[in-house]
């Protein structure tokens, strides 16, 4: 194929060529960035939490009338025993905040009690003795809390300090890079000695810079039930709904008038779905816009190529008359489109890069990885070839006899 001939022919339709190239370039830029955005959303949705999600259900019980701290703690222990005795349950704990939940507690953490020391907010999980086991956390170093280390929430509220702490590996890496965190002290609730490091545990919901997502601390603090949520670990994920029903029945039957409702009992998996539904909706929306954009671009290519074919009927007839086969004509238009698409893609890559820089400026977004460029290019080349097929086939059917007719 002689690209030189195609180029000189295109030179006669400079405006139309520019428009097509521009359209392909804009599409390419938007599609590359939209695909990247979809990719980041999917990646975000699949971040691990470090928690054994399929085996967990949670039941939130609210008090209707306030009671004394002692009475609430006693009721909490009774509830834990009741839940533990349910069939299909392998562990129960109470925790101050749940993954993907609405509430999130933080403490400023620093390495010294000097008020000028740099500190970052780290989320704290406070739970009863079984919590680590129920969540299915994995210990990376050190040890779990000892039974005698657990205190009631009221004691912490009244200023108890020196509580031991277990931190995540990511948090350990931030505060103690390159060394073991076990045995070191951090300053959160007074002075806290790190007794263990868990592999991974995350913030209940995203808060602060992205790298803080994996920073979390565990404290051996037992919450009273109005300030916490019961976490129930089931043996078999298929039994989750049955366990929820059983737990609601058991809790309703026992204790003072409380708010025990299916509204506040759910599986962790459902909570995850709810937490990420905006991301899922956004990914679908981006995919939809990409698709529409490609359709519009294809429509533009079909329209302009049809126009060219109509304009060049006589030239095509002459070429057929002097010996060009139908295949030659078809390939001519395909090559022409390939050339245009290439120009468009080249310009589109630059635009895509620029658009990405603009997005990085305004949103928390990374750099567009290089592999999105060939993906975008392949999509637009393919689209161009598909769109041009119809008009090109029509062109190839122009009979040679057209050449002999006067226009």
């Amino acid at each position, binding site marked *: 194929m002689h690209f030189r001939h195609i180029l000189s022919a295109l030179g006669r339709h400079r*405006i*139309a060529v520019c*428009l*097509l190239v521009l*359209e392909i370039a*804009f599409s390419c*830029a*938007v599609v590359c960035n*939209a695909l990247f955005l979809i990719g980041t959303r999917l990646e975000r949705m699949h971040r691990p939490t470090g928690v054994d999600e399929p085996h967990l259900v949670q039941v939130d019980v*609210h008090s*209707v*009338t*306030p009671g004394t701290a002692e009475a609430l703690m006693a009721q909490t222990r009774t509830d834990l025993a009741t839940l533990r005795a349910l069939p299909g349950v392998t562990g129960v704990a109470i925790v*101050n905040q749940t993954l993907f939940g609405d*509430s999130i*507690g*933080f*403490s*400023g953490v620093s390495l010294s009690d000097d*008020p*000028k020391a*740099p*500190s970052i907010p780290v989320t704290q999980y*406070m739970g009863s003795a079984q919590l680590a086991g129920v969540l299915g956390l994995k210990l990376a170093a050190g040890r779990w809390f000892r039974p005698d280390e657990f205190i009631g*929430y009221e004691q*912490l*509220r009244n*200023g108890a*300090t020196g509580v031991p702490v277990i931190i995540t590996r990511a948090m350990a890496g931030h505060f103690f890079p390159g060394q073991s965190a076990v045995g070191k002290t951090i300053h959160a*609730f*007074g002075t806290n000695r790190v007794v263990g490091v868990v592999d991974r545990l995350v913030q209940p919901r995203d808060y602060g810079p992205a790298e803080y997502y994996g920073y979390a601390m565990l404290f051996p603090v037992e919450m009273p039930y*109005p*300030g916490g949520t019961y976490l129930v670990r089931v043996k078999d994920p298929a039994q989750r709904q049955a366990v929820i029903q059983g737990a609601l029945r058991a809790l309703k039957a026992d204790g003072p*008038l409380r*708010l025990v*409702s299916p509204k506040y009992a759910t599986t962790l998996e459902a909570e995850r779905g*709810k937490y990420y*539904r*905006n991301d899922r*909706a*956004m990914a679908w*929306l*981006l995919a939809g*816009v990409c698709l*529409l*954009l490609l359709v*519009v*671009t294809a*429509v*533009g290519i*079909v*329209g*302009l190529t*049809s*126009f060219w074919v*109509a*304009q060049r009927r006589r030239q095509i007839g002459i070429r057929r008359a002097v010996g060009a086969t139908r295949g030659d004509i078809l390939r001519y238009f395909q090559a022409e489109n390939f050339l245009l698409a290439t120009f468009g893609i080249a310009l589109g890559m630059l635009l895509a890069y620029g658009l990405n820089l603009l997005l990085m400026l*305004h*949103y928390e977004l990374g750099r567009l990885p290089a592999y999105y460029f060939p993906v975008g290019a392949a999509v637009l080349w393919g689209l161009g070839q598909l769109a041009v097929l119809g008009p090109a086939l029509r062109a190839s059917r122009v009979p040679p006899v057209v050449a002999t007719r006067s*226009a």
Partner: protein
Amino acid sequence: MFGYYIDLATRSLRRNKALTALMVLAIALGIGASMTTLTVLHVLSGDPLPGRSGTLYYPQIDPRDGQGYLPGKTEPMDQVTWIDGMNLLQAKRADRQALMTGGTVAIQPDNSTLDPFYEDARYTTADFFPMFGVPFRYGHAWNAADDEAHARVAVIDGPLNDKLFGGGDSTGRTLRLSGVAFRIVGVVGDWNPNPHFYDLNRKSYGEDEGVYVPLSTSQDVGMNHDGGMDCWGNGGGGNTPAHNAPCVWLQFWVQLDSPARAAAYRQFLVSYSEQQKALGRFQRPPNVRLRNVMQWLDYNQVVPDDVRLQTGLAFGFLLVCLVNMVGLMLAKFMRRAGELGVRRALGASKKALFAQLLVESGVVGLVGGVGGLLLALAGLWLVRRQPASYAALANIDPEMLFATFVLALGASLLAGLLPAWRACQVTPALQLKSN
């Protein structure tokens, strides 16, 4: 002449239905997508209290310890502590002032067919209602004396009144909140400011609280606090901090009726900070802000990033649609070179041809605008089915309806400029000869 051009345009557009349909579809898709996202953006960045928001201010002070303080850079805290809130409230330096926070209360209906349920509540001082212009369907708000007396009074909103009392006048009736009996003094009328500017720590958009009780009373009864809380130093955890804890968890709003009053109040915040520093409570130099409602919303970037991203995306899409339309329009006009040549030869000026062709693209734009409007309505219907908290607000208003047609017409005329100019360049003689 204009009527004649319209006639010519419709004839020409009817001649090649497929091409016309493609052009209309392209512009309709672009307009539909842009208007859907623009409407959402418009709704979300709206003024929650038109006419009032300019005189409502959110004072911010900085009671934290010296840790991490960068002079001139560190923003003061987004809420106030109990002590500061009470001090500022009692100073009464503004035209109106209210200290408030949010929570959830358990409601035990008298009607035993209803289970106890939870309702979002606002614990606030009395000025909340006149300051924010809250309308009342029945009864009235409580007053400062009730705040002082820790009165067990409550104001409820319409939906809760419907649920508990069948929508009747419930003032004077008893409501059991968190196990304590409250007397209902008022039922709020239609009031739902969006964004939920006075406490952005909870949902920024969507439904408001159903129950309002005096802040003082809520503390007596031990109603739980929900929403943002930020502690420093040796601040405690938990949901409701002790009143002397170094934690911010309350919102303080003031009404200042003139810019001079606002400047004076700002000065008051500075001197308050200095005084507290002298007392040893504050450790930082005075670090204050006094933002009005719109500045406060802007500072908090309350419009979700996703919505702004969608708007940008939609306009990128509109741009591609327009380039596409320019191409199709060019093809269409160039094909009519013969006809245009005849008109030129018969004496029509280039200007007249240009006008005629622009009218034609304008017609495409208007039809595309109607299509775009339908698509935008469909798009907004889809948005309303989204899980986002602002979803229910996504409705088109007359302003946006008008904007749709302006955008469609403007875009199509813009798209028509180049093809029309190009088509006017035909040399009549050449066109006549070749035909």
